[in-house]
């Protein structure tokens, strides 16, 4: 069990490192104005996270970890949707008033909420069917 936990922590650390390094590199690429660097970076990052995630699934067998992760994800998802929607509406309102430069940021936040909602609905249908919800 100790080895599994150590493995879990090393996978977790690797995932955090990957996200931080790739986020920094993508940020730098955007800063220097090179639009071609982020695309392979994103693909490589997603591939590494997918591979480590698969390894993690094979190694970690504790169900409580999954429930904790599920609850944390759901909390973050709801928190993001609510705050982003509120911030988006506020920015959009301000953008249509005295601060027109804020309108695009507000629209981006509202669109991200809509896309997340659609993704959630699609994922819900997929997992509902996968776990026997099909009539």
């Amino acid at each position, binding site marked *: *069990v100790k080895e*599994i*936990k150590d493995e879990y922590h090393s996978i977790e650390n690797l995932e955090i490192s990957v996200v931080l390094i790739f986020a920094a590199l993508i940020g730098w690429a955007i800063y220097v104005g090179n639009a071609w660097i982020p695309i392979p970076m994103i693909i490589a990052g997603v591939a590494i996270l997918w591979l480590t995630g698969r390894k993690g699934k094979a190694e970690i*067998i*504790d*169900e*409580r*970890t999954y*429930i904790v992760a599920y609850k944390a994800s759901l909390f973050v998802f709801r928190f993001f949707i609510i705050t982003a929607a509120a911030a988006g509406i506020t920015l959009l309102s301000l953008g249509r008033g005295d601060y027109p430069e804020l309108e695009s940021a507000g629209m981006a936040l509202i669109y991200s909420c809509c896309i997340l909602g659609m993704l959630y609905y699609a994922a819900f249908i997929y997992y509902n069917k996968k776990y026997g919800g099909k009539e």
Partner: protein
Amino acid sequence: MPIARINNQIRRLRFDHGEITQEELAERAGCTRQTIIALEHDKYVPSIELAFKIARVFGVTLEDVFQYEE
């Protein structure tokens, strides 16, 4: 709807089985020690699979370990 509650006898069963440690029980049941601690403090209800594994470690039936109360 009445509140349902699942109690367990894990602490007593560990004592009855020669004070088997939480770590050892976790290892044999295939979970972490934190999960055993959470179960003993009634903070977590396990899946049926884990419940069967724990009962099997002690060599008893599921209902000897877990009791459902309404």
